[in-house]
């Protein structure tokens, strides 16, 4: 059982790292720059498939964007500059990880809000519950015993 589990883990690890960019012609000769390009591409959303990154997608537009990333990196632009170039054209939607700003405040705080409202609801429910009845007094218990055992 553990062996099967381990095998599944190994398989997952192997497939998880796979990229669609298997075409060596697309890659940069300099491994440092290529690594930067791949890291950038995996932070960008493919606009055509929308749930894949630019680095993973086989869409034509993703291929073009991969080429542009590499051209701009070779031209000496920083990661931030390349990102800004993309966002200027396609908006924040192209970033797979949304930025932290006024527009995305609700998005980033949604988990905290959900937990807080859950805790709040639980507390309210506890407070609203009626107190358990007081235990019977000695006189009541005697009366009850008398009723039960005539």
């Amino acid at each position, binding site marked *: 059982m553990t062996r099967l589990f381990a095998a599944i883990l190994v398989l997952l690890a192997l497939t998880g790292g796979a990229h669609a960019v298997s075409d060596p012609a697309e890659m940069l000769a300099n491994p440092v720059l290529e690594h930067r390009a791949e890291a950038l591409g995996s932070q960008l959303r493919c*606009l*055509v498939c*929308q749930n894949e990154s630019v680095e993973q997608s086989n869409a*034509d*537009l993703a291929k*073009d*964007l991969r080429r*542009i990333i590499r051209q701009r990196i070779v031209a000496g632009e920083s990661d931030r500059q390349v990102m800004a170039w993309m*966002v*200027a*054209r*396609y*908006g924040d*939607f192209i970033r797979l990880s949304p930025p932290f700003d006024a527009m995305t405040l609700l998005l980033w705080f949604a988990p905290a809000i959900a937990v807080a409202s859950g805790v709040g609801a639980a507390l309210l429910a506890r407070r609203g519950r009626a107190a358990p009845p007081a235990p019977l007094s000695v006189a009541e218990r005697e009366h009850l015993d008398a009723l039960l055992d005539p």
Partner: protein
Amino acid sequence: MEALTRRRLLMLGPLAIAAGAGGAGAALLLRMQEGRYDPHALPSMLIGKKLPVFTLPGQPPSAGFSSADVTARGRPAVVNFFASWCVPCVEEAPTLAALKRDGVPLWGIAYKDKADATAGFLDRHGDPYVRVARDESGTVGIDFGLYGVPESYLVDASGIVRWRWAGGLSPDIVHQDLLPKMRALA
């Protein structure tokens, strides 16, 4: 009595929320059915900004054009990206032809298309454009933030993009969005 109203409120609250969500969902579906809402559509970053600067070669026999040419006549115009390989482009062809009849200046850009394929497309489905240019590499499209074809951009007389539609134009969209916005600019 108090407990009763409280219980009723507890019942009505979720019911009201469910009814609201249901109403909103129905309105969304209706707009999708009418083709006025596309859940995959992205907002354009170009709205309120100048048209990207470009100069493109022509699709013979048309001459090419630049971003300056689009607004050189000092009136609003529409830039339309299309391709012979795109099905919604075929579907929107009659709508574009009607726009031409209405006197709307349409500037066509053939996106990532071969010249002879574009020529065949214009032969089959009509050529409603003032001019047709070729963006064979697709780089001008990317400067527009294009993520598919067709896409249409309404540009005002000063060259500022006022409206963008991603997908084929239908008579509904033209009459409810494009033409009213164009009249407001004129």
